[in-house]
């Protein structure tokens, strides 16, 4: 389930810029805990952004994307008030989806 994402989307001159912050541990699977045991890998594998029903970005992440991932991209089109949906799934099968309106 995870914590909510923070999605910002702004349209300027016909181009919408989307900035996403995701709350996720992004554990590499290479780190050891204080007892010396490997902390298992736990990271987002896929993240998709949609404008309405249309996919505007699909991403695949490895564990070297930073903790609490940040993503910024731009697409042509989009209008004030349109819905942007971002969803992710991680290697444990957890998923989350959040929405924001274009400013």
């Amino acid at each position, binding site marked *: 389930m995870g*914590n*909510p*994402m*923070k999605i910002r989307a702004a349209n300027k001159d016909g181009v919408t810029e989307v*900035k996403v*912050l*995701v*709350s996720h*541990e992004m*554990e590499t699977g290479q*780190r050891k*805990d204080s007892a010396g045991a490997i*902390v298992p890998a*736990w990271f987002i594998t896929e993240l998709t952004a949609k404008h309405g029903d249309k996919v505007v970005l699909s991403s695949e992440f490895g564990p070297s994307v*930073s*903790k*609490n991932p*940040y993503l*910024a991209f731009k697409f042509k089109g989009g209008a004030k008030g349109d819905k942007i949906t971002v969803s992710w799934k991680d290697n444990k099968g957890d998923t989350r989806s959040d929405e924001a309106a274009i400013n």
Partner: protein
Amino acid sequence: MIRRLMKTLVGAAILAAFAGSVAAQDSKVADELAKYREALADGNPADLFEVKGEGLWLEKRGPKNASLEQCDLGQGPGKLEGAYAALPKYFKDTNKVMDVESRLVHCMVTLQGFTQAEVTKQWYSKPGKDSDIEALVTFVGAKSNGMKINVPATHPEEAKMAKMGEYIFYRRSGPQDFSCSICHGQDGKRIRLQDLGNLTTKAGAGEAMRTWPSYRVSQGTVWTMQRRLIDCMRQARWPEPNYLADSIIALETYLQKTATGTVMETPGIKR
């Protein structure tokens, strides 16, 4: 004789050139680090903590099934604007000078019915275990963004805490005979690439205090001022004070008093 003079002159020129290039390199490094910090500022993961903190503030929780909306952080029940910037502060109901964290804990205990131990158990987050306090402090802190730090410490209890904080700041102690002022009492000092602010001046203390709470990229989480100061003690090889200890609140009072008048820019993002 002339040859010797020449040698000296050449030597001096080489030295000067070397010093020049080191200085140039230093400023280039500083520029690049500024670029790095700027790139992180837009999209500060602390924003995620702020959203979570707002949820925790509004959610009915604890044995009393109450929200924190009636919590008085010094500006009246539920008044959050500018509250962080004016803390620590003397509170009549507890007869104590409290900072944002001790006051939040007080509210969680009195309003929501949690025990102090429950609330402070996870006072900072560990990988996979988030801290509610970090989120709440980020949320409350952001409500002072753009406002001036305002801790004149005029109440006698506040003045006493500020004085005690100042005393701790200058007091050499621990196995290394360290004080805060050794690293933070002069201008233009740094450790490796990190500039060390002079916290004895309004400019230095202001620069340090205005961006807290702050997301620490090296830790992947938001640090509160309590955590910052307790960790300073650890780094100075002092015994670590307990969470919410008066010594920490005293230091905060001293630093906020020195920084008073500086405009807050929080949550910050740091190395």
